[in-house]
C-alpha cells in the first residue's frame, strides 16, 4: 500500500517536473471549436508543452537547476540547430555564469521574442476576431496579428516581438513575422537569434483543447539553413493573471555582481 502510494506520488512528481517527460494524460477533448464564420476558434487560455525548450531547443539532459528538454526541433531531422560557427561559439560563451546578466529576460523582457514567448513556461491568452488575433502573455507583453495582406512595417523599425501579419490556410492560422531587433535569446541556455530573423508560425487546432504550434525560423546571419520547432499548446483552466516582473527583480543585481566579479578577475590576470 505504502509502495503504491509512493509510486503514485512519484508519478505525480515526474509529471510536475518541467522537463523531458511526456505531458500527463488528459481527458479526450471535443471537436475543434468554430467561430460564427466557420473559422477555427483558437481563443482561450493556453500553455505550451514546451518540453524544456526554454532551457535549450535541442534535446538535452536535466541538470540541477535546469530542466531537461525532449528536443522540439523537427527540422533538420537530426534535431540540432544549424548554427553558423560564430553563433555556436557565442552559444557556448553564454553558458558561463557571468553571461546570465546578458539574457534580456533577466532584465524583465520576459516574453520577448518569437518563438520564445510561446514556450516560456508561462501561459498565454489567445483573443481572436475576423480581422485580428492577439496573443496576450501572462508575463505582460503581447502580440497583435492583423489578418490579411497588409505589408510589414518599414525595415528600419525593429521590435522585440517583431511585426506580424496573419492569414488562414484552411484550419491553420499562419503568421509571418519580421522586423526583429535581434536582442533576444531563444532560451536560458543562450540559443541564438539575430536581427535577420524571420519566422513563419502555424497554429493548427487538433481538438477543442489542443493547438499544434509550428515555427520555422529563417536567419541566415546565425544559421546555415531554416529550422522548425513543433509543440502542442494545451488549454488551461482559469484565466491568465499577471507577472509584473519589474516589481521586485532582485536577481538582476545578483547577476550583475557575478558579471562584475568575473570581469575584475579577468582584468587582474
Amino acid at each position, binding site marked *: 500500500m505504502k509502495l503504491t502510494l*509512493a509510486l503514485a506520488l512519484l508519478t505525480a512528481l515526474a509529471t510536475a517536473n518541467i522537463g523531458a517527460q511526456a505531458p500527463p494524460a488528459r481527458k479526450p477533448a471535443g471537436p475543434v471549436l468554430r467561430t460564427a464564420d466557420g473559422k477555427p476558434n483558437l481563443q482561450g487560455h493556453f500553455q505550451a508543452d514546451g518540453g524544456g525548450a526554454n532551457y535549450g531547443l535541442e534535446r538535452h539532459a536535466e541538470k540541477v537547476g*535546469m530542466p531537461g528538454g525532449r528536443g522540439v526541433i523537427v527540422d533538420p531531422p537530426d534535431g540540432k540547430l544549424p548554427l553558423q560557427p560564430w553563433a555556436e561559439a557565442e552559444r557556448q560563451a553564454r553558458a558561463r*555564469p557571468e553571461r546570465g546578466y546578458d539574457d534580456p529576460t533577466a532584465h524583465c523582457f520576459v516574453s520577448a521574442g518569437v518563438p520564445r514567448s510561446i514556450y516560456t513556461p508561462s501561459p498565454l491568452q489567445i483573443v481572436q476576431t475576423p480581422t485580428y488575433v492577439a496573443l496576450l502573455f501572462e508575463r505582460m507583453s503581447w502580440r497583435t496579428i492583423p489578418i490579411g495582406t497588409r505589408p510589414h512595417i518599414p525595415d528600419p523599425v525593429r521590435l522585440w516581438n517583431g511585426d506580424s501579419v496573419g492569414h488562414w490556410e484552411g484550419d491553420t492560422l499562419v503568421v509571418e513575422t519580421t522586423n526583429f531587433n535581434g536582442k533576444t535569446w531563444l532560451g536560458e*541556455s543562450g540559443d541564438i537569434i539575430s536581427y535577420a530573423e524571420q519566422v513563419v508560425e502555424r497554429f493548427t487546432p487538433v481538438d477543442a483543447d489542443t493547438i499544434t504550434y509550428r515555427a520555422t525560423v529563417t536567419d541566415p546571419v546565425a544559421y546555415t539553413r531554416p529550422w522548425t520547432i513543433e509543440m502542442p499548446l*494545451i*488549454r488551461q483552466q482559469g484565466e491568465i493573471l499577471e507577472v509584473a516582473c*519589474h516589481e521586485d527583480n532582485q536577481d538582476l543585481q545578483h547577476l550583475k555582481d557575478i558579471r562584475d566579479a568575473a570581469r575584475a578577475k579577468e582584468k587582474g590576470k
Partner: protein
Amino acid sequence: MKASLSVAAIVAAALTAAAPVAAHHSFAAEFDENKPVKLTGKVTEMRWSNPHGWIYVDVTGPDGKVVNWACETAAVNGLYRRGWRKEDLVKDTVLVVEGWQARNGTPTMNTSTILLPDGRRLFAGAPAAGENSK
C-alpha cells in the same frame, strides 16, 4: 518501519530532483548546483512578489547565531497555482526549505520545495503545461 523509511527516502530523492523555480533568468548563472541547502527556520516575511516571491527565514545555527535567509520562489501566480496561500506563510511559521545557495555565498537560495508544519510539501516552481489543463 524500514519500509516506510525507504519510501520516504524515495520520495525525498524525487523531491530533491524536482525542477527549480521556473525563472526569468538562468539558474546556473546565479545559483550553485554544488551547494544544495536544506534549512529549518521561522518565517520573518513572505514577499508575494514578481518576478519571484521571496521567503525570508530566520535560521539558528549550531552556535546560536541567527541568520536571515532569502529564499527565492516562482512568481506569485505560479505559487498560487501550486496551492500556496497567504495564511500558510504568516510570520513565525516554522518551515523546512530546500534548494540551492547563490553563487555569491550570501544566505540567498533558489527554492525547490517547502515543508509546512502540517506536513504539506509545496513546490516552489511554476506549474507545467499539463498540470493546469482540463
